[in-house]
């Protein structure tokens, strides 16, 4: 399972995107699905950096992938604060512009873009997020 560890900082996001693009290419995803995976991973990593690590220096994110027969599996591991995904409400976009609240969009995007999402906060080795995109 190819993997790479990045600094848990926003400046790592472009390099993480390049790593994911390589994975998507190996898995034979089309350009729309490749963009979807890159977006979901960017949202996940941004959440890890902002919420799990609270932008703490010296933090790390380990990205791994596995090419499946029918798609791509991405695993993100961090060693920050766990959270309860089911308690994060989806943002409401069916409101007037002035009432839009910029909260929870990252998780909403991930759930909409990927076919499977699973969190494991009890691995004994950090928080593990697994996401699958089928072709």
């Amino acid at each position, binding site marked *: 399972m190819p993997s790479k560890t990045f600094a848990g900082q*926003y*400046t790592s*996001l*472009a390099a993480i*995107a390049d790593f994911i693009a390589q994975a998507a290419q190996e898995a034979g995803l089309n*350009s*729309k699905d490749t*963009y*979807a995976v*890159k*977006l979901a991973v*960017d*949202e996940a990593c*941004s959440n890890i*950096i*902002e919420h799990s690590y609270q932008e703490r220096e010296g933090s790390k994110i380990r990205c791994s992938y596995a090419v499946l027969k029918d798609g791509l599996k991405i695993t993100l591991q961090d060693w920050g604060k766990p959270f309860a995904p089911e308690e994060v409400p989806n*943002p409401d*976009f*069916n409101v007037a*512009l*002035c009432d*839009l609240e*910029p909260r929870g*969009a*990252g998780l*909403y*995007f991930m759930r*909409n*873009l990927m076919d499977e999402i699973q969190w494991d906060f009890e691995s004994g080795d950090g928080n593990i997020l697994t996401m699958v995109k089928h072709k």
Partner: protein
Amino acid sequence: MELSTTEYKRCDVVKAVGRVDSNTAPDLEKAFNEIIDNGKSGIVFDMAEVDFISSRGLWVLLETQKTCKKNRGKLVLVNVSDEMQQSLDLAGVKHFIDMYDNTTDAVGSF
């Protein structure tokens, strides 16, 4: 991400090249705010060379639109690729921000 701003009579055109993510979105926000702080409220965001925009970037667009509308102006988008459209559709951006196929029409909408 690289940013450039071109002033027109009734609006300013901001062009970005590269990614708009949590790392670079604050720079875009700053560019928009500089225009607004100068008393203008007409902004065209040219996305022809934007190859990625995350939810953080979308919130910059939506928050900028809120401010522009309050000031009786608007933010519009131009040259949005099919891939970028994926991001925008997830947040229902088309309900809040007009999009144009070319810069002439976008600038002409002011």
